């Protein structure tokens, strides 16, 4: 039975942030998860907050924080340093992000030809953030035979009135389908396959040449930018992006696609690499099934394994298990939502209100805000604000009650800030007081 200073459950952005912050601070930390999480499905951007009529992210955060029941009410102070910290880590891993919480929230194109509000994006999507100058054109360019990106449909969507929220969009939007070498003959062609093709220097040289040729033939010259599917390399992304920027006559930016998300995979891999380098452990594959509690404190965390449970002794549990989609909350036929690990009190609307008349109404579905309520240090509390569950537990990410992350686009901000805060609350800068002997410590002794 290994022992650790902390165990983080859940491999989404919240769990990864908490694990990295702990590992970086020198703690022995295990991240345990049943499988991969939201990073593999999401856009790879950092969605912190976006509300109608809020010009900047900071403004949207402030408005959300005004609601005492929103996680930002306790996280808004931690948010700016947490974002700065994670961006520094990502930059160090070769995955820089652009945009700030004081910059404007702007419409950026999606792969279904709509726009989404964004402010902080990976460098590969940076060109989508800049305001459109008069006379600029947007070329939506994708490879022929790729079923997750249809330039003509996207361009048509982006030409619709209102696609750019009344602000100045590109003057023209043109589709361009390019035949890239060998792509149409591939048996499977998903975003991952394309990203790997772009990692082959020879192939991508030919691919960029083909795009240049197609631009000339189509008479699609500058000034302007081009929207490419988000497939510009995976592990060698920085080199591919640099070459795309220098080789293409129009400034390219990536448009995130259907899952699996290549930008999300880059984000996951960068954080995982940083965790492993800092000495943290990431174990993904089986579900955490039991939390051992003694005298009102967490003492161990047990994960399913081949023969007997894998048990990690710890007095610190960070729960980043997600909301309903991630399995952190489980619906039961009696109309209740339960938290399966510790049976913590779940803040949720009464069952009848689940059957909302307008599930996509602007105000949101009542169930969206369900979750675990916490105090200012992210410890779980019950409806009356009294401590709930054993000591040594912190709640992170979309498990926190009071957020509507689909509508408020606050999921990534809540994840990073809560992960960072939960880890900081447990930063073992001094020699450990009560922990079992450290493995490394024993060697030295």
């Amino acid at each position, binding site marked *: 039975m*290994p022992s650790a200073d902390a165990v983080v459950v859940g491999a989404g952005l919240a769990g990864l942030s908490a694990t990295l912050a702990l590992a970086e601070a020198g703690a022995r930390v295990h991240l345990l998860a049943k499988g991969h999480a939201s990073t593999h499905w999401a856009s790879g951007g950092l969605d912190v907050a976006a509300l109608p009529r809020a010009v900047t992210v900071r403004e949207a955060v402030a408005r959300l924080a005004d609601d005492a029941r929103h996680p930002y009410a306790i996280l808004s102070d931690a948010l700016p340093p947490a974002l700065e910290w994670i961006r520094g880590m990502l930059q160090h891993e070769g995955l820089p992000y652009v945009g700030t919480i004081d910059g404007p929230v702007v419409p950026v194109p999606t792969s279904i030809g709509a726009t989404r509000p964004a402010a902080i994006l990976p460098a590969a999507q940076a060109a989508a953030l800049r305001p459109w100058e008069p006379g600029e054109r947007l070329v939506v360019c994708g490879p022929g035979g790729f079923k997750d990106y249809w330039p003509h449909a996207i361009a048509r969507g982006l030409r619709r009135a209102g696609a750019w929220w009344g602000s100045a969009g590109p003057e023209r939007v043109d589709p361009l389908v390019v035949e890239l070498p060998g792509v149409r003959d591939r048996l499977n062609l*998903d975003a991952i396959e394309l990203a790997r093709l772009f990692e082959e220097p020879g192939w991508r040289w030919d691919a960029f040449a083909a795009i240049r040729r197609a631009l000339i033939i189509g008479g699609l010259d500058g000034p302007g930018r081009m929207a490419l599917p988000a497939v510009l390399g995976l592990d060698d992304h920085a080199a591919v992006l640099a070459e795309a920027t220098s080789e293409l006559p129009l400034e390219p930016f990536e448009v995130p696609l259907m899952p699996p998300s290549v930008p999300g995979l880059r984000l996951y891999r960068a954080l995982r690499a940083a965790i492993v380098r800092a000495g943290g452990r990431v174990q993904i594959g089986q579900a955490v099934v039991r939390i051992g509690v003694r005298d009102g404190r967490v003492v161990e965390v047990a994960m399913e394994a081949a023969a007997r449970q894998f048990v990690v002794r710890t007095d610190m549990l960070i729960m980043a298990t997600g909301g309903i989609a991630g399995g952190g909350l489980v619906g039961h036929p009696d109309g209740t939502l339960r938290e399966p690990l510790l049976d913590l009190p779940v803040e949720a609307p009464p069952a009848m209100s689940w059957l909302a008349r307008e599930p996509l109404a602007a105000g949101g579905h009542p169930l969206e805000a369900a979750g675990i309520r916490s105090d200012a240090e992210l410890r779980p509390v019950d409806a009356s604000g009294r401590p709930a569950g054993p000591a040594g537990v912190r709640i992170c990410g979309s498990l926190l009650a009071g957020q509507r992350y689909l509508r408020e686009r606050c999921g990534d901000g809540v994840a990073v800030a809560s992960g960072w805060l939960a880890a900081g609350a447990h930063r073992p800068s001094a020699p450990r007081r009560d922990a079992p002997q450290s493995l490394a410590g024993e060697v030295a002794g």
Partner: protein
Amino acid sequence: MSITELIEAAAHEPVTSTADGCLKCNVCNTVCPVSRVTDLFPGPKYVGPQAQRFRLAPGSPPQAGSVMPVLSPDHTVDLCSGCGFCTNACPAGVRIAEMNSRARAQMRADRRPHLRDWLLGQPDLLGRVGVPLAPLANAALRNRAARWVGETLVGVHRHAPLPTFSRRSFRTRWSRSRGRRLRAPGSADPERSVVYFHGCAANYYEPEVAEAAISVLERNGLEVIVPQQVCCGLPLISNGLYAQARARARHNLTTLATFARAGFRIVGTSTSCTHTLKAEYREMLDLDDEDARAVSGATWDICELLLDLHERDRLDTRFGRSDRHLPYHPPCQLRSHGIGLPALDLLALVPGLDAVDLDLDCCGVAGTYGLKREKYDIAMAVGQPLFRKLRESGADEAACDSETCRWHIAKATGIRVRHPVQILAAAYVAYAAAEAEAAGAPSDG
């Protein structure tokens, strides 16, 4: 079979029924090392849960008038190497790799096995023939003409990393040095002894691994019992020969269950064999009886057991100093154990030893997969990132818990690869030597 019976059969069928959980999120396709390198394999989602719905339940009678004699809709499932990354990555708990193994067995069920697969499936048979003829057999394995014949007639790739036969099997060496110690469970103390499952690799090819494990166990006050045993059957399972594997499993279970029920722990030096005893007899071969459960619960990987001793303060940690960098590759089978990285924790106890997790996926060989003529190139391509990182590390030795991975990595990189327990055994010897030297030359201090 009626619909109700089919539904009941499915409910009792833990592996294939998990296909229902598939959300088509594609996360499995992002981690598959085989589809990463070849277009021939469409990826785990397609051959796993997606194809599963078209497969008939095992044991169901042939459909009247069916024109399809084969029970798998997609023969590319044979290109699945069984590394299990997809199962670990899946957020919905779909047991994809296990599903693929069953599909392969279904495909092979009504055919006579391919001679090559039948041979590779039985390392014990090869060992019994090869060890007595070791000089001759090893010369043949090194002979290019003989390997060409082997590739042409049998289908084993001429460059496949085949191990060399030991001149004497471990069992012969063991019984000569210690006398026959086929002890009955009643005559030993389960607290002070362990049962050793050496498997085929340690017996016929690498008796030094078995001897290292025994020296480490004995150093820690554990008497080692080596009972009668046959091949665990995993190579047969991976080659789809379930019936033959079941015969071997029953043989082992009969012997080992007696020890397991008497409270003995069964320890193995091959992560593949121990995983088979722990999980595959029950999950893949449907031998989920009392014997199988007892053996599963009693089985430990050698490093898992040693780390457990350490956590209970019962491991002798007087290791000799070894100032060097040691890259460590955790094999895929180890990840399926779900026990963390016990070898890395143990190697951290050796003063001066800087053991680092390479944190890369499969080495490619996946048991017998990479030995096959049609799959060798895939196996080499899969392993490239690992081989590159290993070469760049500049180390002249690496560690890995699984034998076929060791042979494959060593062949591909020219770097010596040892089992972590060999490194620990050497560190005990180094300590004793340093002590002796210190005692012999006191003026040095």
